């Protein structure tokens, strides 16, 4: 699916799904979810080479890991709309015995989920592991992961960022949902991240800033495979507005 109007319609549908899921159970994180709708639609419909016939090992396909597991509503919506599981299942979000737990888990067997997330700060490490396995398997597909900006306050991220640079893990793209907000307020007041571009660059990463993080075409352009040609570790600071309505 590459027709941009069709994709825009899908983004609108995904936003509806997010609101319906969160509203139904009066809990969940709509803010980050709504802000990342275009990113997910672009990822799953244009950028990633993936198989909706889910296989945990994901050999010879691109993989995605959601580090900021709290934005599960957007992840679930896009997985369902891509054909990983029935769209009706979105109605079970956050309910007892549902496969769509508040934060993604694997033991419920939800297709498309490869690792549990929710406790922040762990996704880049897992993505690095999957990227290393791809190298060992001579599999030249790419591993994507998404992190929150507040999430970068967790130290483990920086262990992972250091590792990837030191060990030339170049089949990995990390995107930061750079919305400037977290639970207790603006990231700048809770714990300022400083100059993120400079931080990543000093760790040996190449940084691309997508100023219009809600512009599908910009997201697609910056993530195209040709961008990855020089095989450098990349991070994308995807600037998205954080829509209010946090779960507190």
């Amino acid at each position, binding site marked *: 699916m590459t027709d941009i109007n069709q994709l825009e319609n899908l983004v609108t549908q995904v936003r509806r799904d997010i609101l319906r899921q969160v509203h139904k159970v009066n809990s969940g994180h709509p803010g980050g979810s709504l802000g990342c709708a275009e990113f997910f639609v672009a990822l799953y419909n244009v950028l990633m080479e993936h198989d909706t016939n889910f296989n945990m090992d994901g050999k010879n396909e691109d993989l995605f890991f959601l580090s900021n597991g709290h934005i599960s509503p957007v992840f679930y919506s896009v997985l369902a709309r891509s054909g990983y599981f029935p769209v009706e299942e979105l109605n079970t979000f956050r309910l007892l015995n549902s496969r769509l737990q508040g934060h993604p888990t694997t033991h419920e067997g939800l297709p498309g989920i490869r*690792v549990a997330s929710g406790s922040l700060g762990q996704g880049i490490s897992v993505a690095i592991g999957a990227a*290393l396995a791809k190298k060992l398997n001579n599999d030249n597909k790419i591993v994507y992961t998404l992190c929150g900006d507040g999430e970068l306050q967790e130290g483990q991220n920086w262990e992972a960022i250091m590792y990837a640079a030191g060990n030339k893990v170049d089949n990995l793209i990390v995107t930061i949902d750079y919305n400037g907000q977290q639970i207790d307020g603006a990231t700048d007041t809770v714990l300022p991240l400083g100059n993120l571009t400079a931080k990543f660059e000093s760790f040996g990463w190449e940084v691309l800033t997508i100023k219009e993080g809600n512009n599908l075409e910009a997201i697609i352009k910056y993530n195209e495979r040709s961008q990855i040609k020089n095989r450098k570790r990349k991070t994308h600071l995807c600037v998205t507005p954080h829509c209010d309505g946090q779960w507190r």
Partner: protein
Amino acid sequence: MKKFTNTGNKDTRSGFGAGMTQLGKTNPNVVALCADLTGSLKMDEFQANHPERFFQIGIAEANMMGIAAGLTIGGKIPFTGTFANFSTGRVYDQIRQSIAYSGKNVKICASHAGVTLGEDGATHQILEDIGLMKMLPGMTVINTCDYNQTKAATLAIAEHKGPVYLRFGRPSVANFTPEDQTFDIGKAVHLIEGTDVTIVATGHLVWEAILAAETLDKQGISAEVINIHTIKPLDNEAILNSVKKPAALLLLKNTTI
């Protein structure tokens, strides 16, 4: 009373290292990760033989657990190596979420556990590790008694699908179990039959239990000794059958459970 021979003191961590060396040759999916303690964990031979399958993570244990979880996606069997306190308490949340709840086939291999560690002192002598690990869903917990058994367990856990915590240590202790044993996960080993008291021992204290049984025997007390190398799943049957006899029960362990 059955007699056991110490074929010479050896450290259990070297049993792990020997197991890793063998796995390196026999199982191409086995990969190893270490957090700046390769020599202490006796993983250096694996590293030298298979540099492409060895990942030096640096002093970043949280990252190590996450990378290990990711490596399983694509069919690798990661063995992580560091001291027991950095293998468990330091990274509990990472193990809980990325490995245990995610059902990942990671083998968490830990040396320098318990009071038997000795010289490094209390900060390193973790006693809580087994208790912490056994509470996690799907986690198998193994605590081996000597060099030979540790080597056998290292080989066995590579064949077992699911997360495992394998605990061993630094001091040289008696090596008395058979060299070419098969290691049955979850199956206690009845070392000595007895009727008056049952000693259930694990890890480095199994040899001490044998010595105690010999001493008791001289005093006319018949002690049964069970090597409970797997703490989870626990071989309840072996323990319950033993204490059905008019026996007192004594637990010998180097951990709080």
